[in-house]
């Protein structure tokens, strides 16, 4: 099997050995309703209401949506308008924690007896893909086994982005939850095989998972080379099973389902405790971080400004949700931790990588060689400039997953990913 393109990146994973620490209760919690792909939940609480830990505070009837729960007990002080870093507007619930952390009524292990009740339980837990894409997990689980039978569950533990080590800590600290979660999925969804895929820069995690699964025939640990973007869905499917997800199709069309390692660990934890998704393990790192680099378990809704203060990174010039290759730059430190956040990276002036003027494309072809899907980013650029939508379709622009390899390797510093995003917008019109 030919290995796909991609690039070698510096790892910067110095936080890999730092154990997860509880971040604590912030003074204020801000929970936006826009936290998952699909329909936006409506706030179920109003100003002045008292909420408890695990209480559902946002929901909608639409299937493609995940409910939102309060991570703290306290008082709803406001419902505000919120703009997330991608420009999506939503309502957000502001809660002032009372510090008591009173649990909501009915936080008990869910009753799971078949596929339907399993999917219902996952939906009620508010779970979305924890790898970063925030796709409601129950939607992924409710595939049609007649039309698209799935024979392999792929657990994505590649964590190919530099700096981030939260999934590595998940392997080392929640190994039992991971195997339990996999067994639950296999049992109720009828998936015979499972591959846990880990990049070779996490030898401890690989050794531990191999030990944990040595008596479980259905689970195999796959070591993948550390090559970005190993954790991209299409790439990890290809490298672990050799299957290709075709244009416009879903992994289920190729007979696989990919779940992030933290996602599957959460499923097991929810089945045991019934506590919905209210906290998240994140990595705090970056050149502007002066102290307390490491992995923390934070309440969803914790303002980033609290995290910057904790890390001594108030002077940061660029703050990212997620890794440096695909993460989103924040326009304000008032943004909160979301369900999909797996890292907060703060960079100072030197590493923010702006002010480098692009020069002419020299047609060196580095972008094509780096592209894991063998696309031609330099051709997207010319086609976009002339608004040639036919050419963009012919060049298979919709396949681009914005992984950033092309921009990273470009010797002329051309903003290729940016152009690809704009070109995709042009195609949508």
């Amino acid at each position, binding site marked *: 099997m030919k290995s796909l393109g991609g690039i070698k990146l510096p790892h910067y994973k110095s936080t890999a050995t730092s154990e997860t620490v509880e971040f604590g209760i912030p003074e204020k919690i801000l929970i936006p309703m826009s936290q998952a792909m699909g329909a936006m939940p409506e706030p179920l609480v109003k100003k002045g209401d008292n909420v408890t830990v695990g209480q559902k505070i946002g929901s909608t009837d639409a299937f493609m949506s995940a409910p939102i729960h309060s991570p703290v007990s306290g008082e709803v002080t406001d419902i505000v308008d919120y703009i997330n870093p991608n420009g999506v507007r939503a309502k957000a619930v502001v809660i002032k924690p009372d510090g008591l952390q009173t649990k909501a009524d009915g936080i008990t292990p869910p009753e799971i007896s078949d596929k339907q009740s399993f999917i219902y339980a996952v939906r009620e837990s508010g779970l979305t893909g924890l790898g970063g894409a925030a796709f409601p997990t129950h939607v992924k689980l409710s595939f049609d086994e007649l039309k698209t039978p799935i024979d392999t569950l792929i657990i994505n533990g590649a964590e190919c982005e530099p700096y981030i080590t939260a999934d590595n800590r998940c392997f080392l600290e929640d190994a039992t939850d991971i195997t339990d979660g996999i067994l639950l999925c296999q049992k109720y969804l009828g998936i015979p095989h499972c591959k846990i895929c880990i990049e070779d820069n996490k030898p401890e995690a690989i050794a531990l998972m191999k030990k944990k699964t040595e008596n479980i025939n259905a689970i195999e640990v796959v070591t993948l080379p550390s090559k970005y973007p190993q954790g991209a869905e299409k790439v990890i499917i290809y490298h672990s099973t050799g299957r290709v997800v075709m*244009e416009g199709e879903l992994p289920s069309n190729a007979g696989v389902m990919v779940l992030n390692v933290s996602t599957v660990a959460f499923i097991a934890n929810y089945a045991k405790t019934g506590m919905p998704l209210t906290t998240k393990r994140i990595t705090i790192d970056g050149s502007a971080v002066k102290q307390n680099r490491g992995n923390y378990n934070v309440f969803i809704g914790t303002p980033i400004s609290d995290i910057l203060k904790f890390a001594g990174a108030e002077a940061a010039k660029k703050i990212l949700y997620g890794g440096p290759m695909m993460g*989103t730059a924040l326009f*304000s430190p008032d943004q909160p931790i979301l369900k999909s956040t797996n890292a907060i990276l703060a960079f100072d002036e030197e590493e923010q990588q702006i002010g480098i003027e692009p*020069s*002419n494309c*020299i047609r060196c072809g*580095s972008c094509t060689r780096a592209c894991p*899907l063998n696309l*031609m980013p330099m051709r997207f650029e010319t086609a976009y400039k002339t608004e040639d939508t036919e050419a963009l379709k012919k060049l298979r622009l919709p396949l681009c997953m914005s992984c950033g390899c092309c*921009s990273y390797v470009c010797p002329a510093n051309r903003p290729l990913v940016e152009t690809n995003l704009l070109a995709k917008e042009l195609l949508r019109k």
Partner: protein
Amino acid sequence: MNSEEKNLKLKLLTVSPSPHIRGNNSTAKIMLTVIIALVPAVFAGCLIFGYRALTVILITIISCLVFERLFDLITRRPNTIGDFSAFLTGLLLGMNLPSSVPYYIPVIGAFVAIVIVKCLFGGIGQNFANPAIAARIILAVCFAGQMGNFAVPVKSFTTFDAVTAPTPLSAEYFTVGTDKVLPFTLTDMLYGTTGGTIGETCAIALIIGGVILIIAKIITPTIPLSFIGTVFILTFLYTGSIDETIYYTLAGGLMLGAFFMATDYTTSPLTERGKLIFGIGCGLITFVIRFFTKMPEGVSFSILLMNLLTPLIDDIMLTHPIGMKKIKRVKE
């Protein structure tokens, strides 16, 4: 700026699309690597043809840099000589000239390469033909006498002999009895102690340079292998003699052209399949010109002609993206 404004300015965050880190590759690094790969051939050229070879190369390099800087100044563009592209063009142009040319010819060549072929079409990455090749051809047409006047290899670096030397491709065969004997020995061909342009004669140095380019991943072996391979196979089929085939493969500008001129990013196809077609096309045209026309050498013309076909090759030869579906043709 009062303190409040200063505070506000400090708090402004940078927002930019991903990725937020960049690799350390740059156009200048690529060009410098090619220049380093050319050093063995330049060194060999200066040893073989003496001080005059070095002077010609220095004139082309300096004129190329001056013309590019002047063009940037006159058209109010950012200074682009820092990318070493003009330096490389000058170096390649110098290597494509005989050491015996009058000193005004390299200057005219540099003007053609930098201003007419490169800058007027939009600068680096935008030229339709390889600037050094185009300049060599224009000079060869305009100054046929001086450009076809190749110096003999010199005895020492400081000497210069104005006697015209035959090149491996223009020299007559010797006849010994009934046998044809090639004008130069294999050793002459490898070391480059024959007539020719400054940079094209020493095959060993050029092959070393080509290997450096391939190892440094500046080029893929596709174009050099398909170009040289096509010439080799066709020559063998035509002459039927392995000695003659090796002789013709090492002769003329083939090594310089295949490793350093045909592989120019801007004027060669983007995909490997496109590069294969490009290399085979270059080889075919070179063979036809060498054996079926009155011109002794065809490497530059073959590269120029294939440069012109590059946009067409690029249009047809796209990559096959992973997971692509065929686009259904809608009947109108």
